[in-house]
């Protein structure tokens, strides 16, 4: 076997008595420390540093053991074992976005894949309670049978678990009307890092039911959400439901279903919108008129979703990597655009009315609708969005290489302009990794209107070659430069929790200021033994001392590049 010539990566193991204690909790079938099995939990999706660690043959990237609990009680017992023996643990669902990474101690992965049931849909009170592994597609499918839905799916696809997205507050494509996931929570049940169970919201009062996320007393839910998974393991989550205007299932693509022989034919990606929903695409001559129109639409009260995709549609709506590159190069999609999702929630007349309002706003601001007469080929190519706006599937099409990192600045609509400027500077400073990196720099960044336009979310991403560690590091450089620049310019650098993840929490003390000191106190309260997703949100002094000096130097270099002082 040729691989035998290469350097192996040795797996650290749990002590046999620890393994046995865990096996006693879940049974033999649901625990494993097999070498090839733990490997599949070792490299994360868009966590560039785990790629670098894998290229360096760093054995700290490999977990020691994986355990699959089936109930909150089992999660609690596992966590207690971890506390008893000081075993660090990482809760895990897909491992797609920003799961915590392993460290130099033998680390346990608590994979929640068995906890995949919808516990209850309360149609009277319009809430649903889910186990941790339930994803958006499952919830939507069940809620739609009752004329309800949860209000949106995340950019990162419908297989994202709500309990995971809770860790980052959660972005949806229909935030214009429904707000982020964090505005749609009613309750969570968590196993805290010390093994206690925390239930927040009105359900923490016996028989009170699920109706109010804040009460009683101090807002412990707010303290946990967006916590990057550092303060416990969510085992149940209760979310709000909203009226659904469509049918009980989503419509079929009229051209049928693909096979492996023709899966890349665009015709299979051309669904109609759901019943009683319409999608309108508008292009603009410049960024200013785009922003002005988006603000006007937001303020008018019409529509459930409003987003600008810019050149990102080249990734979302292309069926092959070549097509993506071609469309980026040739600017097939309009530089300045947005789409509007209109739903007839109350009646069909609602759609007619809102379309009239939309027409007037667009006309006033000089926008042009994409129609059968105006750029029909572009409108046709954008059809994947017809269902993606409701149940997002295509987001990670951009990820055919590697989705190394992203900037997600938030703020008023003008944040899009700043994102564009800073991203261009970053690419000019470091050089692009891929033609698609220019998306968001030369053209419109991703720009989502949130909560009636009170704020917006911009996004730019980059795509290095995952087999090339130098490119990955370069791409990581954009990300750190971006954070430094956004902090320097006092632009809110994160929608979710980007600056609440180490080493950035500590290395950007301007945020807060000194938010890391608050997080350290919170961690000491909730995680006295420092075992939960260790060092995820904030390092202890000891953990900080173990951070490779090179990483600190690297962040400091970026700070200096943008005119911030080094952090010692």
């Amino acid at each position: 076997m040729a691989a035998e010539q290469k350097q192996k990566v040795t797996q650290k193991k749990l002590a046999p008595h620890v393994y046995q204690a865990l096996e006693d909790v879940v049974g033999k079938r649901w625990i494993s420390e097999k070498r090839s099995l733990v490997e599949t939990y070792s490299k994360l999706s868009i966590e560039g540093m785990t790629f670098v660690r894998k290229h360096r043959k760093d054995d700290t990237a490999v977990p020691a053991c994986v355990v699959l609990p089936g109930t909150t009680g089992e999660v609690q017992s596992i966590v207690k074992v971890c506390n008893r023996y000081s075993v660090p643990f990482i809760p895990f669902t897909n491992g797609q976005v920003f799961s915590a990474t392993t460290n130099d101690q033998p680390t346990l992965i608590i994979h929640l894949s068995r906890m995949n049931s919808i516990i209850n849909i309360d149609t009277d009170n319009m809430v649903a309670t889910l186990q941790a592994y339930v994803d958006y597609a499952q919830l939507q499918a069940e809620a739609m049978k009752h004329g309800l839905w949860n209000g949106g799916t995340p950019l990162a696809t419908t297989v994202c678990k709500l309990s995971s997205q809770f860790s980052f507050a959660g972005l949806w494509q229909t935030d214009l009307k429904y707000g982020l996931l964090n505005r749609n929570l009613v309750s969570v049940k968590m196993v805290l890092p010390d093994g206690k169970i925390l239930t927040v919201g009105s359900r923490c009062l016996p028989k009170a039911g699920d109706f109010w996320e804040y009460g009683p007393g101090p807002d412990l839910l707010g303290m946990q959400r967006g916590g990057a998974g550092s303060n416990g393991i969510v085992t149940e989550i209760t979310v709000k439901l909203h009226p659904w205007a469509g049918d009980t299932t989503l419509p079929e693509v009229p051209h049928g279903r693909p096979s492996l022989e023709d899966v890349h034919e665009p015709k299979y990606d051309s669904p109609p919108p759901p019943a009683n929903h319409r999608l309108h695409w508008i292009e603009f001559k410049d960024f200013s008129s785009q922003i002005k129109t988006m603000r006007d639409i937001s303020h008018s009260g019409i529509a459930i979703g409003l987003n600008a995709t810019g050149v990102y549609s080249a990734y979302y709506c292309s069926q092959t990597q070549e097509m993506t590159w071609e469309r980026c190069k040739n600017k097939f999609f309009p530089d300045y655009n947005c789409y509007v999702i209109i739903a007839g929630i109350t009646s069909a007349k609602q759609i007619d009315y809102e379309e009239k309002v939309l027409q007037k706003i667009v006309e006033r601001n000089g926008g042009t609708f994409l129609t059968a007469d105006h750029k029909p080929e572009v409108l046709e190519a954008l059809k994947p969005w017809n269902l993606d706006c409701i149940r997002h599937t295509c987001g990670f099409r951009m990820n055919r290489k590697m989705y190394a990192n992203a900037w997600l600045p938030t703020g008023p609509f003008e944040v899009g302009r700043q994102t564009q400027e800073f991203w261009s500077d970053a690419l000019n400073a470091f050089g692009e990794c891929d033609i698609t990196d220019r998306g968001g720099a030369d053209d419109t960044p991703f720009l989502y209107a949130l909560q009636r336009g009170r704020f917006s979310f911009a996004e730019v991403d980059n795509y290095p070659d995952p087999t090339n560690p130098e490119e990955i590091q370069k791409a990581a450089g954009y990300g750190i430069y971006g954070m430094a620049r956004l902090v320097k310019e006092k632009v809110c650098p994160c929608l979710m929790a980007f600056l609440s993840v180490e080493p950035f929490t500590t290395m950007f003390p301007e945020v807060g200021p000194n938010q890391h000191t608050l997080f350290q106190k919170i961690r000491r309260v909730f995680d006295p033994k420092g075992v939960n997703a260790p060092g995820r949100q904030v390092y202890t002094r000891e953990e900080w001392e173990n951070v490779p000096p090179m990483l600190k130097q690297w962040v400091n270099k970026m700070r200096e590049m943008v005119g911030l002082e080094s952090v010692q």
Partner: protein
Amino acid sequence: MTVNKSGKKVFEKELEDYRDQVWGCARCNWCQNQWGWSVKSAEFSEICPAFHEYRFFPYSGMGKMHIARALIEGDFDYADAPELAEFIYTCTTCGACEMNCQRMQDKEPLKVNEALRARFVRDGVGPMPEHKNLINSVKSYDNPWMQPRTQRDRWAKKLPVKDIGKEPAETLFFVGCTTALDASMSQVARDTASILLKAGVDLGTLGKKELCCGSPIARVGDRETFIELALRNRELLNNTGVKEIVTSCPGCYRAVKHDYPEVPGAAALNFKVYHTVEYIDRLIADGKLTLSREIPLKATWHDPCHLGRHCGIYDAPRNILKAIPGITFVEKERNRDQSWCCGGGGGARTAFLDFAQRTAEKLIDEARRTTGAEAIVTCCPFCEQNIGDVLQRTGDGMKLYNLIALVSQSIA
């Protein structure tokens, strides 16, 4: 960083040829789940039988990508991970992971797993011991069931089918090992031939000279044996002078139509390849077959993976079912490209019978609960064996039909 761009054919690609793909796995988990637009319920939202059963990532397409990456880079070897074969061979090769991953990221987790299997065989750590009997049988008897060659045309007794070695015919019926040699399946061969003859097809067979198509061998990773078989078959079939070949088994269909062109160094096929369902669908559409006898039955269609997801034949069997008087056709929740595998393919049934049968139980459960059907209809001998065994063992009242049998009954 895209698929199929190396210039190599599938059966000459080494695991290392997939290096860029396996490093780039985004852990999006579409390999385990139905395509998002198609999800109709929480319960039936998953699509990978092995992950659904075992719940650990190595059983999923994504897990195979990560294992492949580690093996390519030498992070561990077989001695460190004796469990590897179980992860690699519980896959039913249903292709659901590949379908959704190609659609999402232009990557090929199934082909990666097949490259893993090929490497295991090359290095002597695969296939599973149970597969070796099957391979040895093909080598000795030209079929995987250890049946003498003389038995291969026994099904055709008293049927006026031409022996293509003795007299020319326009259409060759490629019967397939299981249909020809398994006594419980051979009625399908007789029905198929009778139907085609009735429609006026100039039909012949290879008789005792028919060889295994090699599909089961390819799926478990023995490339050397498969390539040898493919080359023999291509020469044999090209020399028949037929214009078209009709196969009864979806595995044969996929092998002849799509795998043989991916074998390096062989001549092109000089005939067209059809599966019986698409051929019969065309005969009905052309008015050469009339289905007139009523069969009162509420029935659902199970898409065999090698026919549907792999080759795109979704509509033909549905058209036929709908054309049979008396049949009420009802669609399972997961269907076509998102159909739930029966568990019988890829060598999973041979090596992991319990898992394969639990997968079939889930299929039967879905069929009953999402359609209210009284019968599952399919047209793959492997699906029939696996589903049929479960129905027999459990005493389940659900009926199971081969579509050809229903067509045969319905012909006036």
